[in-house]
């Protein structure tokens, strides 16, 4: 029984990690799972530090739930491996049953045992004898003191999820897995509960892997977010890094609203409808095509009738629609060629539908994605 997965390059990579970084509480290496012709999880490398909260974010069918079920032990990987708390739980010739993995799981539906009360549910994973103290501790931690004897159907949706969380935390697992735990709740309850859950997990010092398709949720409460598409991890970053510097067009479009403007590279800059931009990193080859990423709040509008001179016809945009978002308003702008852009302004400074404007951005260096062909 070795502590690392028996694959040369994988072990190498594990050993070359900077020594000042603590041992990851959890990691997967080249993890792969196929269902027939479909590769649901495709060579996923992830590591989560002790006490860290990592979200796996992706559209439905991207393989994130399969990833979670591989970690929990409900599926066997076809390749690669999984380590939890420094112990290999899945790898070549090794598959530890779910009950021996020390993971705690919370599902979208709370999945409380309907034949047991709150205390019975929370104590389910604890050894017989001496359960009561730990149960009381957890009931207090999740803020449900006094409800120990309630049956699951006597609890609200939010309370049920708190019990499910307490039940998962009770045996002090090495890793907590959250599978869309908030999506069955209504909007107001959801945002309150996710703040509370984050706080509970922080105070319990739990290491957490959180699967969601809701980018707002992921960005709001995670230390880091892994964006997944078609079985692969596209990017793992802090929420702000993910928003400001997405590594590719998919991540840019999936996280937040994105304007992607194509143009030709000349003198190392991309020429677009709204100006010229440098690549934030890397260099660009003259004569190639590339796309720049501009977030709606980076685009500014100037009504044409306030300009001193008539602009070139192709750079004039028309406001075709406005979408109210509370503190700000998004304007959909259409060019004469049919291209649509989104520009955000504070709610106090909106532009009427039908107004002809030109758009520009103050930023000079932005994320740029070369177009292949």
């Amino acid at each position, binding site marked *: 029984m070795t502590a690392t997965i028996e694959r040369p390059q994988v072990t190498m990579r594990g050993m070359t990690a900077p020594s000042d970084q603590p041992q990851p509480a959890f990691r997967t290496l080249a993890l792969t799972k196929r*269902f*027939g012709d*479909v590769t649901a999880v495709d060579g996923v490398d992830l590591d989560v530090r002790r006490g860290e909260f990592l979200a796996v974010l*992706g*559209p*439905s*069918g991207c393989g994130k*739930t*399969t990833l979670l*079920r591989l970690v*929990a*032990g*409900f*599926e066997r990987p076809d390749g690669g491996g999984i380590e939890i708390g420094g112990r290999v739980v899945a790898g070549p010739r090794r598959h530890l*049953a*779910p*009950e*021996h*993995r020390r*993971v*705690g*799981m919370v*599902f*979208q*539906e709370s*999945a409380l*045992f*309907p*034949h047991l009360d709150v205390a019975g549910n929370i104590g*389910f*994973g604890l050894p017989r004898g001496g359960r009561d103290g730990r149960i009381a501790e957890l009931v207090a931690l999740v803020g449900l003191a006094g409800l120990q004897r309630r049956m699951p159907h006597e609890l609200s949706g939010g309370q049920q999820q708190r019990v*499910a969380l307490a*039940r*998962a935390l*009770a*045996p002090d*697992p090495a890793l907590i*897995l959250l599978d*869309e735990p908030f*999506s069955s709740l209504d909007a107001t309850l959801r945002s309150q509960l996710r703040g509370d859950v984050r706080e509970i997990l922080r105070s319990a010092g739990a290491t957490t892997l959180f699967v969601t*398709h*809701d*980018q707002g949720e992921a960005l709001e409460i995670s230390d880091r977010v892994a964006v997944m598409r078609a079985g692969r991890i596209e990017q793992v970053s802090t929420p702000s890094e993910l928003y400001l510097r997405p590594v590719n067009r998919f991540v840019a*479009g*999936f996280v937040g*609203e994105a304007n992607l403007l194509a143009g030709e590279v000349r003198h190392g800059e991309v020429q677009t409808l709204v100006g010229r931009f440098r690549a934030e990193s890397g260099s660009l080859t003259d004569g190639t095509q590339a796309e720049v990423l501009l977030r709606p709040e980076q685009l500014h509008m100037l009504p044409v009738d306030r300009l001193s001179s008539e602009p070139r016809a192709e750079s004039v945009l028309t406001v075709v629609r406005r979408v109210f978002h509370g503190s700000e308003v998004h304007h959909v702008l259409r060019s004469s060629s049919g291209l649509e852009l989104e520009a955000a302004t504070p709610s106090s400074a909106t532009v009427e539908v039908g107004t002809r404007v030109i758009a520009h951005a103050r930023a000079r260096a932005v994320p740029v994605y070369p177009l292949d062909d």
Partner: protein
Amino acid sequence: MTTLAARESGTRSRARTPAPPPWLVGAGVLVAALGLLPIAYLVVLAASSGESALALALRDRTLGVLGRTLLLAATVTTASVLIGVPLAWLTVRSDLPGRRWWTVLGILPLVIPSYVGGYAIVAAFGPRGALQSVLEPLGVERLPELYGFPGAALALTLFSFPYVVLSVRGALLRLDPAFEEVSRSLGRGPWRTFFTVTLPQLRPAITSGALLVALYALADFGAVSLLQFDSFTRAIYVQYRASFDPTLAAVLALLLVGCTAGLLLAEFRLRGRARYHRSGSGAARAGALVRLGAWRWPAIAFVALVVGLAVLVPIGTIAFWLVRGLAAGEPLNAVLDAALNSLVASGLAAVLAVLASIPVAVLAVRHRGVLGTVVERATYAGFALPGIVIGLAFVFVAARYLPGIYQTLPLLLVAYLVRFAPEAVGVTRTSLLQVSPRLEEVARTLGRSPGAVLRQVTLPIIRPGLAAGAALVFLTAMKELPTTILLAPTGFDTLAVRIWSATSEGFFARAAAPALLMVLVAAASLVVLLRQDRDR
């Protein structure tokens, strides 16, 4: 745009389920093998006699039995539809006076097992029956001939038409009245609307009810044997009694199984498709009641005649002979004896069937795959096997290989298990489907092995379902006649056997008390079944 696509997720497709533990597979395969044993042995028996089996199947006598059976099934089914559809419509959609009462009375005949019904008809209208003893002082010496086709068809129709009522009633209640309202607003009158809009939507329900009736008519042993009509079940029994050569009986049994299996297949197909005919979910808004006007009187006469024949005649006949028997000093302690035997055999059968249903249902629901499907289907084979066939197969198997267990309680229980396991599996399966697999997965992550999860989580949660399944098997086994006749230990008479043998010998008073008890048992089983249906 991208955010929108992401938001509508939540569902996930999972292609694989984990491999089941070996003990579960072993138990499931054992139950399935037992379910296939009767049919397999009959095939072996028929095949081992070489080409003579085919010759026997094509013999005039065999074909005669086949023809009579099909004629009986067709007549009973047609008559049941002609009674059941109007009755359902009148009680659901018209302003028939006393609709609530007619509804209950129209379903009540289901609580009369066919041999009790057969007994009631013989004891009421047969030679030396109640009707004749009342008419005798008036000089009536003979009543029209009852035995044979007319009696068998009458008995089976009267006690199986409620299947059509139940299924059509359900469809009428689910029917969205908007369809009829649209038709009326587009200028079609009530009659044209009924025939062009309502009836086509009822067709799946009518067919499904009719198939159940046909199955009942094919598989029934009690009524046809008491009314002496040579359809398959009686011919098989007579053949088995008359000669020691099992081949012809086996061939007849296989032909019968062919007929029932065909019907069952059609029923499964239909049920699969019928789902699409439902309009929306939840309770439909009730449609406006149709005013019958002067039609009210013929309608009342119709339902009164049906209910009179199917409910009042049997109950009245049982009461008549009960009183007459008590007056004549008919001993009641023999009834208690038989009731105790019924209780013991049915109780054990219920426990066995529910235990056997657990591995089959778990395999079928939690480990969907080739194995789970095969095991489940094999168990359901019992549905296609009439009791007389199962009984016969086990008689042959025991006589050939295990003479020591022939006519012992364990063998009877094994036969009961094969016969009733499908019912228990059905109930257990339904309960299990309502338990989220997430519950079991959570229990795994909290340190439980698959066996411990089954014991500590799954079974406690589905306990009410298991109890309902046991109750259902218990009550059905109480009613079982043919398997019991063929396999019960000598002297181990159950209530069903007592009714049958007393009626066969013309002791109508002796059959009355057990018949009354049996009606009560059957009524209880109907209550359990309807409750189960409602919970589904």
